[in-house]
């Protein structure tokens, strides 16, 4: 058969990067975490810094991130990943240090650590996965939940009069003098995933220049928490999340 000739090592164009381990991810089918992990891993792979990278895992769905990245990893207490990363980076300034955090971890319990690490301008990369819900604990309302969005703790939809407004923490940290590169991306479609990878690569390159904190938000889905199929959740995200959390660079280094 003609096709079988194509499957040979010299024709290989895409395979799972070796910066990801072979463990099967525990995430729900269609969850954006897997793609976000891999885009970060591919950025590390393409820069050839696997041996010099240290990651800090959060608490939340991605708590087991240390099983999936084949780099040195450290688990942090809930929300404290930027503080732990600060310590690691100060002791080992030549290493590339990143944190990988969800919205409950970064924008709720870890708000203080996030804002102060960004304000101090620590030379770390913060990857922030925003799906507007607490996925791991059963779909409760998060600080980033959209107005009117139904969750298990806002069953009639988020009412901003009593439950407050969603927190756009990415815009917030972009205002701080310590941040150098702040961008918002997504990984739901091929072009977006490739763009997110480029942003991560850029951020790791900036880290080498010691210019300040790089902050990448990935707007992602939560099929289980949103109670949708993966395809529906991506569509819902495009229609509802992106108007509120517009994709694109928020703070770019001056040329």
């Amino acid at each position, binding site marked *: 058969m003609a096709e079988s000739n*194509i499957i040979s090592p010299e024709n290989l164009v*895409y395979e*799972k990067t070796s910066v990801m381990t072979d463990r099967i991810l525990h995430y729900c089918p269609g969850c954006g975490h897997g793609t976000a992990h891999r885009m970060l891993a591919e950025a590390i792979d393409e820069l050839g810094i696997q041996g010099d990278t240290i990651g800090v895992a959060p608490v939340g769905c991605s708590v087991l991130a240390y099983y999936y990245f084949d780099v040195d990893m450290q688990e942090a207490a809930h929300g404290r990943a930027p503080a732990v990363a600060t310590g690691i980076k100060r002791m080992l300034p030549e290493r590339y240090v990143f944190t990988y955090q969800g919205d409950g971890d970064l924008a709720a319990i870890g708000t203080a650590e996030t804002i102060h690490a960004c304000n101090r301008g620590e030379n770390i990369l913060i990857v922030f996965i925003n799906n507007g819900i607490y996925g791991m604990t059963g779909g409760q309302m998060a600080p980033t939940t959209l107005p009117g969005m139904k969750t298990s703790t806002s069953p009639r939809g988020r009412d901003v009069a009593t439950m407050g407004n969603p927190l756009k923490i990415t815009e917030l940290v972009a205002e701080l003098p310590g941040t150098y590169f702040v961008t918002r991306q997504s990984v739901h479609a091929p072009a977006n*995933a*490739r763009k997110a990878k480029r942003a991560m690569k850029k951020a790791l390159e900036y880290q080498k220049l010691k210019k300040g904190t790089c902050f990448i938000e990935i707007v992602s889905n939560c099929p289980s928490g949103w109670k949708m199929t*993966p395809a529906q959740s991506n569509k819902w995200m495009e229609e509802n999340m992106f108007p509120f959390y517009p994709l694109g660079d928020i703070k770019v280094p001056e040329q």
Partner: protein
Amino acid sequence: MARKGDVVINIERCKGCEICLSACPNEVLALSSEVNSKGYHYAIKVNSECIGCANCAVVCPDAVITVYREKAVKK
């Protein structure tokens, strides 16, 4: 003519989320009627229109797809 490609799908890792289906420009992928050992309908190749663009593999959250593409013929 577009270069031909092919995909190899690790069906045991596939969770049947269908995200690769919409990423494919040529509708090469579909879900099987059979299930893998975890009970998921897995992605399969249903035609030979693959051009090796790797879109499916890029968006696959579980990295189950490996993509091959024939080399460009030099003129």
